[in-house]
């Protein structure tokens, strides 16, 4: 690699600076809150991408895990536990559930895995609706206060935003390290050639299981941020639509890329919250955007844009070199 900062590095530095200064240039509290949503949905999508992108395992039950964490946090808080205890308790509960989900779903791969995760997600959704003594049914559970870690008031939009940003950046670093690690390479290997991986001495099932657990951990972290953000949890959060939405974030942005799920999360959250203020049929618009992505860049927004950029750059350079070569020709 050269010492010169590449376009990629500059873009990342600009994005980082924009994120850090965001509350100062965003036109209002509402938009700061939308940005917080983008951040925790991005963590959620990063978590799902571990399975979908790097593991080749498509889950349609992740909203169930997300919901379990949110419900667990809200329930433990309503029992009178402190924020720290509730958060730790919710993490333990959701990791336990993730392990059970993984053990059940990993009996299959491909379509079978999708169907089992779909069924498990629907079970959670059904329980959220019907197990009224625990979940409050349709009424859901309210969360009365937000915590104030290290003196940062999470009741304040900027405070919540910066806390989300710190956790988001940690998640990005964790995923970056993971995908470049030997374990990450092994996970990608089980995606591409499970049979060969087994013959090479890898425990394919165990690799997939631990990938599920890491995915579940990121999902749980996002779920905790979500429930503190909305201060309310209802069965809607665990629905199939919610699972599909986060899957679309990953697929639209670009599975098996680091930036893809983040861009996908930003796209969905912005259309859902901001554009819906101007266009009544925002669902239609979101659908149209997805159709456009699938047709124009089926590999996802991030890899697709990179490809178009490279093609454009190459076309520009070849034209320029033709012009230069033409001018250098000796006159007859």
């Amino acid at each position, binding site marked *: 690699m050269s010492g010169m900062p590449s376009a990629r590095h500059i873009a990342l530095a600009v994005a980082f600076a924009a994120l850090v200064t965001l509350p100062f240039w965003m036109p209002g509290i509402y938009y700061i809150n939308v940005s917080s949503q983008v951040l925790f949905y991005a963590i959620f999508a990063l978590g799902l991408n571990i399975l979908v992108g790097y593991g080749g395992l498509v889950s349609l039950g992740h909203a169930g895990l997300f919901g379990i964490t949110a419900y667990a946090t809200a329930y433990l808080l309503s029992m009178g536990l402190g924020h720290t205890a509730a958060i730790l308790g919710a993490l333990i509960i959701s990791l336990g559930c993730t392990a059970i989900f993984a053990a059940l779903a990993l009996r299959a791969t491909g379509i079978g895995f999708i169907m089992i995760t779909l069924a498990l997600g629907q079970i959670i959704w059904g329980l959220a609706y019907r197990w009224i003594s625990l979940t409050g049914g349709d009424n859901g559970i309210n969360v009365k206060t937000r915590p104030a870690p290290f003196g940062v008031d999470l009741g304040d939009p900027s405070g919540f935003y910066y806390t989300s940003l710190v956790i988001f950046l940690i998640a990005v670093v964790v995923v970056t390290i993971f995908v470049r690690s*030997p*374990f990450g390479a*092994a996970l990608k290997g089980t995606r591409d050639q499970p049979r*060969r991986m*087994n*013959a*090479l001495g890898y425990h394919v099932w165990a690799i997939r299981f631990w990938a599920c657990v*890491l995915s579940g951990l990121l999902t749980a972290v996002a779920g905790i941020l979500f429930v503190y953000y909305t201060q309310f949890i209802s069965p809607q959060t665990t629905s199939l639509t919610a699972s599909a939405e986060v899957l679309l974030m990953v697929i639209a942005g670009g599975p098996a890329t680091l930036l893809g799920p983040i861009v996908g999360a930003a796209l969905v959250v912005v259309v859902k919250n901001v554009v819906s203020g101007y266009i009544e049929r925002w669902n239609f618009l979101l659908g149209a955007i997805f159709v456009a992505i699938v047709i124009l860049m089926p590999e996802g927004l991030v890899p697709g844009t990179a490809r178009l950029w490279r093609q454009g750059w190459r076309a520009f350079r070849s034209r320029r070199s033709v012009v230069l070569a033409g001018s250098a020709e000796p006159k007859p």
Partner: protein
Amino acid sequence: MSALTVSKLCKAFGGLRVTTDVNLNVEPGERRLIIGPNGAGKTTLFNLITGELTPDSGSVHLLDRDITGVPSRRRAHLGMARTYQIITLFARDTIVRNVTLALLGLSNERWNPLTVIDRNTDLIDRAHEALQRVGLRHIADRPLSQTSYGERRRVEIAMALAQNPKVLLLDEPFAGLSIDERRDVQETLRAIPRDVTIVMIEHNMDVALDFAERITLLHFGKVIVEGTRAEVVADPHTREVYLGH
């Protein structure tokens, strides 16, 4: 001691008996060739030996240790490596990453989620050495998608060799190769030291006969003839079922 012993191995897919009472005894350092017409059960026998299929009855011993119930992935750790008849490589990765994955499979490092695999110079150096053995070191960083069929065959062999196996199972390593490529692979195989026992399935009789010391002829899942090169070629059964006259 023998390197690989197969006793009374049986396997049926429904009513189709693909392996019937197969016995095989391969000495350490031996070069064994398994021949037989299409559908004779050669690859099935390999899958039974490597544990990718579970036998209905019978046993498999590796270096006098009973491995019949040992999962396939453990057998790699015990010194068994194989190549596939249908190329089974990581198409999105570079050649050297393919071999690195083979090395990583036997290392405890494979569970490590915190280091950068591209900075594991020990692993990558060893991958380059394995590629040197098959003559591909100069294109180690090329993506697999930009390699020729013959080069991929050699990557298959490099991955198996990288694992430093005691018993190496080669499933048609010459399949689909041009004459030049065949010669390259032949040289690669000839250079493998004698502490590696090799069992090879091959259709191409010229190269195979040249390589093997002992030959086992399979037909309809049964061992029909077994013996030295001369014995098997001279046997009337061989002419009948294999050479076709």
